[in-house]
């Protein structure tokens, strides 16, 4: 397989973008990406687009055609990719495979979601859980992660304050990200005193309902070299699936699909957790960041909370996690999230993360996750 480079990035601001329709969000991200890469639109051969449920949020399917048309790319090969909240990560992997295989040289890997369009977001998102055996019984996504949190607390002694510390840290990072939906610092009291969504999780333990799009441009490393611009290479790609019903998994305090995807990515890249300088994880809920860090091998099970409270995962710590603000502060337009994570890692590795730069970062990891852990992707990027 050919070595693949990320040669351009583009994304919208994340937030409640009431004036922007779905199609314009994607078009804006593509235009920014092509400008960043210095590549003309007629060079683009293919696009992979992650989106969870435009049918429910916006009443629009046949997405890849309409989005590439409005992005000025009509005629190219374009495919929508769905893996719930891991749709963006899955689209990135598909784009990477297309370039690595030699089938195409210039491929867009993007994602989009417009969640603020009048639909019941709780219902739309719940379709990523088992409709007949979870959702039928009143289960919500905050509820599923709340049950993981409860199991984690019971097994490892994790506390309510441990969860809150993740939100405080990510908002502190997000306050330095101009594209974040909520670029504001918050206090522990804000998290602990917020309205309860599903015990033990409150409003500030949950990522928001967001609109946004993000895309990157992939090309073979030789092409990236010819362009003479900064780029990063894809060193490892891991993708795994599991049951989407939480009750079908043996350890409810873990999310095994993350470990499975990570093992594949580490093996391919020839690196381990100790080699990683900066990380984006799928903190759809505060508990998810702790469990994902444990599954990725950065901490032993039950130890991520202590590391978070010690500042290890904050900017300036040994392993900065979610320097973008994470899903919590940056926002979580579901299909765009996996690509936005990649973009944060690319910006960190190329020294463009102004105001939140991790100095000297060479290798970064982005972990994207679907549902309560029914799918996950892990990508490892390196700057040469």
């Amino acid at each position, binding site marked *: 397989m050919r070595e693949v480079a990320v040669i351009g990035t583009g994304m919208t601001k994340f937030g409640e973008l009431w004036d922007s329709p779905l199609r314009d969000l994607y078009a804006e991200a593509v235009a920014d990406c092509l400008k960043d890469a210095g590549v003309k639109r007629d060079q683009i051969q293919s696009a992979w687009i992650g989106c969870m449920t435009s049918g429910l949020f916006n009443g629009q399917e046949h997405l890849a055609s309409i989005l590439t048309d409005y992005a000025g790319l009509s005629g190219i090969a374009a495919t929508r990719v769905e893996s719930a909240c891991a749709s963006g990560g899955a689209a990135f992997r598909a784009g990477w495979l297309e370039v690595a295989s030699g089938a195409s040289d210039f491929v867009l890997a993007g994602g989009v979601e417009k969640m603020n369009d009048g639909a*019941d977001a*709780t*219902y739309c998102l*719940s379709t990523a859980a088992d409709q*007949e*055996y*979870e*959702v*039928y*019984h*009143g*289960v*919500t996504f*905050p*509820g599923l992660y*709340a*049950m*993981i949190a*409860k*199991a984690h607390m*019971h097994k490892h002694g994790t506390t309510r304050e441990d969860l809150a510390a993740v939100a405080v840290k990510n908002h502190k990072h997000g306050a330095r990200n101009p594209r974040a939906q909520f670029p504001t610092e918050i206090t522990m009291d804000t998290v602990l005193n917020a*309205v*309860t*969504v*599903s*015990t*033990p*999780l409150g409003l500030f333990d949950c990522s928001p309902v967001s609109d946004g799009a993000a895309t990157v441009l992939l090309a073979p490393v030789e092409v990236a070299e010819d362009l003479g611009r900064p780029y990063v290479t894809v060193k490892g790609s891991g993708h795994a699936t599991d049951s989407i*019903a*939480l*009750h*079908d998994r043996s350890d*409810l305090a873990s999310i095994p699909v993350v470990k499975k995807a990570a093992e594949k990515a580490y093996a391919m890249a020839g690196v381990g957790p100790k080699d990683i300088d900066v990380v984006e994880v799928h903190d759809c809920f505060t508990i998810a960041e702790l469990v994902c860090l444990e599954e990725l091998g950065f901490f032993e099970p039950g130890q991520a909370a202590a590391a978070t409270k010690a500042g290890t995962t904050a900017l300036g710590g040994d392993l900065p996690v979610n320097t973008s603000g994470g899903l919590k502060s940056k926002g979580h337009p579901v299909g765009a999230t996996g690509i936005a994570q990649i973009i944060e890692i690319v910006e960190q590795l190329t020294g463009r993360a102004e105001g939140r730069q991790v100095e000297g970062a060479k290798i970064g990891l982005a972990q994207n996750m679907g549902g309560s852990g029914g799918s996950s992707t892990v990508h490892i990027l390196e700057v040469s």
Partner: protein
Amino acid sequence: MLSPRYHREIPQRYRLEAGKCTGCGKIHFPPRSVCKECGGRAFEMEKLPSKGKVLTCTTVEIPPAEFDDQKPYVNAIVELENGVRLTCMVAEAPPDEVDVGTEVELVFRRLRCGREWEVLQYGYKAVVV
């Protein structure tokens, strides 16, 4: 919830009918057409035991619209006496009486009314024993 989708699930929801793989003995709830353990495709019906204990739980304060009339309610993952796990509501108990390890029994209840053109929706809930 449209009636064709609802109709198919009645044996599981009303009578707790599971599928036991005749090859390896694995019990699947709901029944599957291919055994997750051994790939077998022959099953016999096995009724689930009604008693079990709570493995984890949460009190849902902000539910989807169709459950709004029942809030707050407890959702739990229950492990039944034969090891099968399922997700359900725990009914008729204050939320602080339900915790990891609480012993429960599955009972037949109405789960939600649905919108006016939908069927009434029934199934199992747990109650504390």
